[in-house]
């Protein structure tokens, strides 16, 4: 970089770019799991951009919505590409965000001083779910209509005012045109709120700086850090390209595999689909909802399952962040991951017999993990010795890069 460009980057306002995307000191040892944050940001951009172009051709009206989607697919230049990017982009967005959240939980990134970063992230996740749900309603297929009916009806579980709230949400006495138009406006609006929160998320992160696989506080800048550019920029770029290949396979070769066939049938209030299922990324929460026999308590359980993440910094009593030095926690972590995947599978199955039983056990375990196992583990667990710095070894001697890189050697 030439000295002139450096001078420009030190001017006011432009220096924000410099401080956050160029000189920003990043831990030297962050692994590929740390690329999913920037990936999530990029997918937010993909969704907003493709969404704006779709909105130019889409008509939010019960008689025209399905038709206008087919118009996009058939007659708009590359409309099929924009729509498939948007539809599959939503799935990819959730996939990278779930990995991002999973990484935060594994390496204790939510622990102080990053509680605020984490809580903003949880709000982003909730808004993403709301946006995705409303977006799925817009094509006005059978799953759109019946998904909207089932989910909005959940509010009727609220005592006394429930029915009134549902009518207010619908703008009528059933899911109909007013519901569709308001879902469209909100689906367009909320992503920009998410964008604002993402800025806060990054801002809040860049004060204490990134967590890292070792999970210790680091001096910055120091030999434990590298400047964001070019080291992290090129690494994020590499990870992005890898992920784009996966994305391209979905978009170009199986664009409908993640969707439900019923959504290519135009919405019909007179015909209920055999199974009403949400998109895959909401299935674990749907399973939790259905595993509670009482409607109100089911809704409470489903909301708690997400909101419990917000208080995770206070549920985890451990002094040590990273699971690398927490042999027991590491095992419970993977059990939790399996538990959530099982919940997801059960969410796709009919809520009966063995499926329901497994879903109930998995739901109970989900809460058990956060409310009992996690707080107790912080007190009881015998943790491994933590190094003093990323590049320094535990007990003197030459720098131990194996430790820094979170290798198997310290796992055992």
């Amino acid at each position: 970089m030439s000295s002139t460009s450096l001078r420009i980057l030190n001017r006011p306002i432009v220096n924000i770019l410099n401080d956050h995307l160029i000189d920003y000191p990043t831990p030297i040892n962050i692994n590929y799991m740390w690329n999913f944050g920037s990936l999530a940001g990029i997918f937010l951009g993909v969704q907003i951009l493709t969404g704006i172009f779709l909105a130019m051709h889409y008509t939010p009206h019960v008689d025209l919505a399905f038709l206008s989607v087919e118009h996009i697919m058939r007659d708009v230049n590359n409309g099929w590409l924009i729509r498939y990017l948007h539809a599959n982009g939503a799935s990819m967005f959730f996939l990278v965000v779930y990995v991002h959240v999973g990484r935060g939980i594994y390496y204790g990134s939510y622990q102080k001083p990053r509680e605020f970063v984490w809580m903003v992230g949880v709000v982003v996740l909730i808004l993403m779910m709301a946006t995705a749900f409303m977006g799925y309603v817009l094509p006005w297929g059978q799953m759109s209509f019946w998904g909207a009916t089932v989910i909005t009806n959940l509010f009727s579980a609220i005592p006394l005012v429930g029915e009134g709230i549902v009518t207010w949400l619908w703008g009528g006495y059933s899911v109909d045109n007013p519901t569709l138009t308001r879902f469209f406006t909100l689906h367009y609006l909320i992503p920009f709120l998410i964008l604002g929160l993402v800025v806060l998320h990054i801002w809040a992160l860049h004060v204490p700086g990134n967590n890292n696989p070792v999970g210790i506080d680091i001096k910055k800048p120091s030999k434990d850090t590298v400047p964001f550019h070019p080291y992290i920029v090129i690494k994020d770029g590499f990870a992005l390209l890898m992920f784009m290949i996966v994305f391209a396979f979905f978009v170009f070769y199986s664009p409908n595999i993640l969707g439900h066939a019923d959504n290519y049938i135009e919405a019909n209030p007179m015909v209920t689909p055999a199974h009403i299922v949400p998109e895959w990324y909401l299935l674990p929460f749907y399973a939790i909802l259905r595993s509670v026999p009482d409607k109100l308590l089911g809704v409470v359980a489903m909301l708690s399952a997400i909101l419990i993440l917000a208080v995770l910094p206070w549920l985890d009593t451990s002094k040590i962040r990273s699971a690398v030095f927490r042999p027991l926690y590491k095992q419970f972590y993977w059990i939790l991951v399996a538990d959530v995947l099982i919940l997801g599978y059960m969410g796709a199955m009919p809520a009966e017999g063995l499926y329901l039983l497994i879903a109930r056990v998995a739901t109970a375990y989900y809460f058990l993990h956060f409310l009992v196992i996690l707080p107790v583990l912080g007190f009881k667990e015998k943790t491994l010795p933590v190094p003093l710095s990323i590049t320094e070894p535990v007990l003197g001697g030459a720098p131990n890069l194996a430790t820094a890189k979170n290798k198997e050697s310290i796992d055992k």
Partner: protein
Amino acid sequence: MINKVKNLIKLLSILAFISLAATNANSAETAKLLKTDWSFKGLFGKFDRGALQRGYQVYTEVCASCHSMKYVSYRNLGEKGGPEFSEAEVKAIAASFEVTDGPNADGEMFTRPGKPSDKFVLPYENVKAAQAANGGAYPPDMSVLVKARGGGVDYIYSLLQGYEEAPSGITLDEGVHYNKYMYGNKIRMAAPLSDDLVEYGDGTKASVEQMSKDVTTFLMWAAEPHLESRHQMGFKAIVYLIILTILVYFSMKKIWSRVESEV
């Protein structure tokens, strides 16, 4: 490195698990679907032009008397990646249909021969009329039918060949037929195809199997008219991404070699 590979494997298995769950949820099949070699599957999948043209013939001579295809226009039949009828053929096809247009200057509706820009003419005035003519069952619109059924093309292909005598123990109401691939095995539509029902212009033998394959290919095109350009663009995009990924990988290695850490 081993750790990275392990992480990747974990990630991929999660992805596989999710798609498995998704597909499982989508297909509650009654019988195992018949398979055939579809020319439009795979990395370079393209439609078989002959099959599309024959499929259009089957659709228009057999299916179209009950099933609408309201999102498709006659002009689409001449577009690249479709049946690719010549411009003259498309005009002739369109002109063979009577289209209601209007109102004219006198406020009257009138009929005229179809133009390529017209949408496929509907077999019934409205849904109620369609139901009345078909014993209460509405013949679904075929524009996106293959995408609207779990199992897709294989399901439609099987269904067309899945008519047989109802096994003993199953009683069928008047106007209901037994089909081993239909959900619940009961279908209002009578077996639509029989050998030599249509006479193919290119001399292909019009067996039920052949017609099923042709018309299903046509339905796939109707649902995904840009499938060929999607596959072409996809292949280019993926090759481009792979090359760029390799280049960026080596740049990354080079840049990170400046610090004592491996990526």
